[in-house]
């Protein structure tokens, strides 16, 4: 073959060279089929359940929340009426940063990018009329997760639900907040301790509740490649597992309720291979490193959603098509839960119309496209199996490298991971600007003069924020003030003594202590995070 006829080398984002053609020898060369197995059996590469979507399609869970609890409750009901099967709650930035709506730092931010929460009262309003046995709720909360998990459990208990059977998820992955997203509050070490407190508490009192969803998603959004996304998420999950094991729990007492949140954009086959490889690798980490014995402890359960990082401001209607491919990838990858960033999300909080299109996109795969009929349909493809083997090696190598360099916790605390990922993000932006990395609407097939499409912007209503302040003042006026003071003091004592804070947290939220009051108590015990700025 002459040089001119040899195809130009193609390397995927994870750094793996992609061939023009694959055959059986490529699978053998990269490790064979030894880690493929059967769905529902170790190492779960093909899926965590034997029948997967034949038994139950993925949960559809669009990220939603804005204004106050009453506003958000209306949107929740709209989505449920349209066939959504789970809820994924967006909170405003003051809530996420542990501030009350009347804090001076919250001015102009109350209810802007999510629902405002100050007290248990807001949870009671937000979930009114929603059957929490049928609709599982995911709380996208991290820094203030202990408060909000406590509020969710207290709200459900107040409505008569059996907490022992209550399902639901909290994101509660603070380590990734230090890498991307940035809703940290306390320093790294006490932050990990709080995650440990929630896992330990739920293992004993709310054993069906998933207290953590470890997010590769935001690490990818910050600039990580797909292999790093999964590797760093696994390193972070191990840090939480270590924290809980250190307290004397056995891995099988809690690992079954750990879950993951991953991102989808980019090359279709690289993403599918990433998820198949990840499932096998996580199972081996849990079995061989942590000596888990229950299959559930080895499952990489995940929400895998179409990521904002793949969508563009330019020609936003094209994002509807991108979202459809992302949903297809998620279904081909055996996700338990799916969400899609909406086509208008580069501009605004999604409109009802945009949310409905995303929901219908997922429903199409179930109802019309046959994606639920057969488990792991890409298995046996020489390309997909080879790439799955290669992605497993690549993810494993990044984990080993991270461990060798002091471990994920130390590298996050020093800002090293953040600096590496932001350097990659910069290179990617440069590659998009030069046209080396193709992006439709951005560097090819541009339609000049259409940089800003006409999309319906979500209105920020000052009146909703004012209503929230009125709610907060009303709750403060009618609550039992001495009980609030007493429970907050007990919470701080637990924090200072190194006890699990969750029992005292439950007492405080049931007394209608606010998110901000609780944060201040904990910050007195733990201090506040100082961000390392490194380039």
């Amino acid at each position, binding site marked *: 073959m002459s040089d001119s006829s040899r195809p130009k080398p193609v390397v995927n984002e994870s750094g793996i060279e992609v061939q023009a053609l694959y055959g059986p020898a490529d699978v053998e060369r990269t490790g064979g089929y030894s880690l493929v197995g059967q769905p529902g059996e170790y190492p779960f590469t093909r899926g965590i359940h034997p029948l997967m979507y034949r038994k139950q399609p993925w949960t559809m869970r669009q990220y939603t929340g804005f204004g106050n609890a009453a506003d958000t409750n209306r949107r929740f009901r709209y989505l449920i009426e349209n066939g959504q099967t789970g809820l994924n709650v967006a909170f405003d930035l003051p809530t996420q*940063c542990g*501030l009350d709506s009347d804090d001076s730092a919250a001015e102009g931010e109350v209810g802007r990018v999510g629902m405002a929460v100050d007290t248990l009262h807001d949870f009671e309003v937000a979930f009114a009329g929603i059957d929490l046995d049928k609709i599982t709720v995911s709380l996208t909360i991290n820094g203030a997760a202990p408060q909000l998990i406590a509020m969710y459990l207290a709200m459900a208990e107040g409505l008569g639900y059996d907490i022992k059977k209550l399902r639901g998820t909290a994101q509660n992955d603070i380590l990734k907040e230090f890498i991307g997203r940035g809703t940290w509050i306390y320093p790294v070490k006490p932050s990990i301790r709080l995650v440990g407190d929630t896992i330990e508490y739920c293992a004993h009192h709310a054993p069906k509740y998933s207290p953590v969803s470890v997010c590769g998603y935001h690490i990818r*959004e910050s600039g990580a490649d797909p292999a790093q996304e999964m590797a760093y998420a696994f390193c972070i999950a191990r840090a939480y597992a270590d924290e809980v094991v250190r307290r004397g729990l056995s891995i099988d007492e809690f690992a079954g309720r750990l879950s993951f949140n991953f991102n989808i954009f980019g090359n279709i086959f690289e993403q599918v291979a990433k998820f198949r490889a990840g499932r096998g690798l996580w199972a081996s980490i849990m079995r061989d490193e942590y000596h888990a014995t229950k299959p559930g402890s080895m499952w990489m359960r995940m929400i895998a959603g179409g990521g904002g990082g793949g969508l563009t401001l330019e020609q936003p209607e094209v994002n509807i098509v991108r979202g459809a491919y992302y949903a297809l990838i998620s279904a081909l990858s055996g996700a338990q839960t799916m969400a899609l960033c909406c086509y208008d999300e580069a501009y*605004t909080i999604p409109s009802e119309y945009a949310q409905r299109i995303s929901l219908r996109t997922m429903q199409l795969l179930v109802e019309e496209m046959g994606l639920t009929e057969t488990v792991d349909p890409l298995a046996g493809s020489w390309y997909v199996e080879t790439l799955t083997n290669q992605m497993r090696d690549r993810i494993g190598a990044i984990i080993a490298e991270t461990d060798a360099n002091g471990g994920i916790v130390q590298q996050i605390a020093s800002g090293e991971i953040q600096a590496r990922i932001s350097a990659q993000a910069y290179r990617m932006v440069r590659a998009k600007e030069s046209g080396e990395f193709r992006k439709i609407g951005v560097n090819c097939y541009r339609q000049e003069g259409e940089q800003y499409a006409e999309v319906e912007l979500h209105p920020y209503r000052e009146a909703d924020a004012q209503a929230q302040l009125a709610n907060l003042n009303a709750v403060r006026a009618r609550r039992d003030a001495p009980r609030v003071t007493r429970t907050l003091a007990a919470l701080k004592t637990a924090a200072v003594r190194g006890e699990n804070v969750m029992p005292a947290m439950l007492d405080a939220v049931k007394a209608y202590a606010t998110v901000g009051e609780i944060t201040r108590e904990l910050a007195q015990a733990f201090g506040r995070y100082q961000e390392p700025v490194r380039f």
Partner: protein
Amino acid sequence: MNQKRPIRIVLGKPGLDGHDHGAKVVARALMDAGFEVIYTGLRQTPTSIAKIARDNDADVVALSSMAGSHLEFCRKLKPMLEQSGLGNRLWIIGGNLPRTDHANLRALGFKGVFPSSSRLADIVAFVEANVP
């Protein structure tokens, strides 16, 4: 010491928004262009940005805002920058900035407005052409 120092830019992340992907990318582009960049990190108030800009005698005050509170923030920041003697410096802002807000931001003194997907080279060229 009469050699002219590089253009000094204080790049701030206003408010509670933690989305710093764009801010860090722009910071690197400005550094690559030979400017000195002081990145504030997250959670800055108008007071803290004005102070950092004044303490560092910034030639350029740049903000990156992704979560929609840019107008309120800039309204508060404007008098503070002026009181700090930085009224004559170049103020620019980038991020998720709806088109309907651009004129208001310019009226508040933010001469350069760079919405998401602006090109890095355009930001650099604007700073070079407009720095006082």
